[in-house]
């Protein structure tokens, strides 16, 4: 929560020049993407909405607003505004009182929570992040960008185009918080004594598909497996927040936010 507020404030210089048009080319409310409006919206969110929707919109009694939906098919700005204003009586969400300006500030905050990081203001220095990614943070040992880097972690070639800033930041600061399905670290011993280590792409009682540290696939029938163990923790190191400064992590977020598979305008 605090980090996002900082992001938002520090990012005011960057926000100029962002393009804020909806997919159909309609002009958006000036609050959307506006750093001051988003900060005001966050304050209002924490005072009224976070009770149900959780800090950073991570969910609680109410739905998670930053995850769980395909980002490209979320509600339009107007529909989000309407939902905030009128509530969802059938789901137990009350109407939100306040001026039109305040409701648009809230809308701007909710939109920012789920917007692709590449389209959101960033405070960090992407160059710092790039150096970290390929250097002392060692992200590239597991993650790849456009074919360079390791292969046992999720590909980050489209990190900024497919994930919100919040999601990227949480993945760094609290890895595994949203599960690690398809990337669980595992060790498999075959009946012939061969031991394999890697991440599980899929498994059930009858077969498993494992990607080893060299990026090779092993398609195993369980009739060939003597034992296997699955780590309870994410394979991602849990201590980045302690190891790196806020500026470094902001830089990493900014660098990942820049990674898009195709030009952003193609989305519109």
């Amino acid at each position: 929560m605090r980090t996002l507020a900082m992001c938002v404030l520090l990012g005011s210089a960057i926000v100029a020049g962002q393009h804020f048009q909806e997919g159909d080319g309609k002009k958006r409310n000036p609050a959307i993407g506006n750093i001051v409006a988003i900060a005001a919206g966050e304050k209002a969110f924490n005072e009224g909405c976070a009770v149900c929707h959780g800090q950073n919109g991570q969910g609680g009694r109410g739905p998670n607003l930053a995850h769980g939906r395909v980002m490209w098919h979320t509600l339009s700005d107007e529909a989000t505004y309407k939902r905030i204003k009128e509530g969802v009586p059938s789901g137990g969400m009350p109407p939100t009182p306040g001026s039109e300006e305040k409701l648009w500030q809230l809308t701007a905050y909710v939109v920012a929570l789920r917007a692709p990081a590449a389209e959101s203001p960033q405070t960090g220095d992407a160059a710092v992040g790039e150096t970290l990614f390929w250097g002392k943070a060692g992200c590239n040992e597991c993650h790849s960008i456009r074919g360079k880097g390791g292969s046992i972690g999720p590909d980050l070639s489209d990190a900024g185009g497919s994930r919100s800033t919040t999601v990227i930041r949480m993945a760094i600061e609290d890895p595994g918080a949203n599960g690690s399905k398809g990337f669980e670290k595992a060790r498999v011993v075959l009946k012939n004594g061969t031991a394999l280590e890697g991440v599980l792409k899929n498994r059930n009682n009858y077969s498993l598909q494992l990607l080893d540290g060299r990026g090779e696939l092993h398609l195993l029938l369980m009739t060939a497996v003597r034992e296997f163990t699955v780590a309870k923790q994410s394979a991602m190191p849990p201590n980045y927040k302690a190891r790196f400064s806020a500026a470094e992590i902001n830089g990493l977020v900014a660098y990942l936010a820049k990674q898009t598979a195709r030009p952003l305008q193609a989305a519109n």
Partner: protein
Amino acid sequence: MIKTAMALAMVAAGAMAQVKPEDILKSPNADWLTYAGDYRGTRHSPLKQITVANASSLVPKWVYHVPKASKLEVSPLVHRGVMYITAPNEVRALDARTGRLIWEWKDGRATRSDVNRGAGLLGDSVFVATSDCYLTALNRKTGALLWQKQYADTKKGVFCSSAPFAVKDRVLVGTAGGDTGMRGFVAAHNATTGEEMWKFYTVPAKGEKGAETWGEYVEWGGAATWLSGTYDPELNTLYWTTGNPWPDFYDGDRKGDNLYSCSVVALDVDTGKLKWHFQFTPGDTHDWDGQSWPVLVDRMVKGKMRKILLHPNRNGFYYVLDRTTGEFLHATKLNDLVDWASGIDERGRPIKVPGKDPTPAGNRVCPGVRGGANWMAPTFSPDTGLLYVITMEQCDIYTSSAKKPEPMTGFSGGGAGPKPRDAGTFYLRALDAATGKRMWEYPMPGPGVAWSGTVSTAGGVVFVGDDEGQLVALDAKSGRHLWHFQMGEDLFASPITYAVDGKQYVAIASATAVFSFGLFEPAQSVELVKGAR
């Protein structure tokens, strides 16, 4: 146990191997590495574990339901135990023995969602074209993005649906959208970087050679290239078929042959230079794309062994060409219901029957708009010398409109449809490849909605998806029914066959799922493994 461990080691080692151009030259074997299995478009596999004698014991081995799919047209690829399937803007890798998902890739930013017919494989990459024409290379082991390159402009009426075709160091791609105005082309892109190497337009620009065969709208003329091509490595030649001229049903603004619509073009794979072309339906007014497969085989024709190209066409005729020179050898009627032309003359041009163009009031013409044959994949068996092709017996009422053509508005110069309601009947026909003589046929009654194709095997079996959701196995020699399985929904894709750990499978996509079949084996109890939770 030892046997299993050995098998496992083989699979593990196999997964490491790259897909080399020479591997594709040997495909299909246990693997199925191109849309049609091989470069020649034959869809014939040397696998022979499944035979005429035991096909009755086929059972489903697994089913993979593709989330949110509604009309899968994919022909799967298989390499060393991994199956690659596509849906619009999506690619998935499955364990080909178990149907378990290994990875999936989705392009959430694609601006269109149309059908997709499959992937290409080369090196460590799997290639797919998104509906909005981003040629995409993914790491075939992880699904990680390697590069994306938009190769056609969707703002000019183009969309993309065909499987990329990997030849040498390049990936060949085609274009769709010819029914609403666009300019078709085939392009080669560097498989490592995605950079364009050459582009061959199937419709000339104004002022270029061939433009005189069109009218004012030449640069919106269509001739889309919406199926993959075939390739002869010895001749270093790529064969690609082209779609209808636009507007589909009215030629008032495009009097002439409309080159190179409804044709096959032979291109130098290194340069994209045109070697020859052959046009099946000059100045077409019935939407009879030339998209059926150009199948490349070597057969005796009139006492001489020749490199020939087989082509069952949507216009109701079956063509045999010399693929070295493009020389027309002969054509025969593919369908019983053909009334727009009385035959094909010695130059390969149709002998047209007057009064068979679409009219404002409607004119009944055979074959119907879906054609005597279409893109449903045929197969050629060198063991029988037969080409197995799905044909449609139907006529349609064709209408025309002289309205001023406006590209990308859905205008196609008229339309076509059955009146009164006549679903027509699909037949799988076995033709003597060299002569076109019909050796047997197998009727496939149904609602007339199928777009499935075929695969044949050295086991003497032809598999075909029918018009009622069934995969059917027939004796390749006689057309005798051996086995069928009801998949519960319509079929728009063609079957393939592959092997893993010495076991042969036959796979096909239904509208929403991929099924894989193999010979029945009693289940063996699987002990719970220590450490599993």
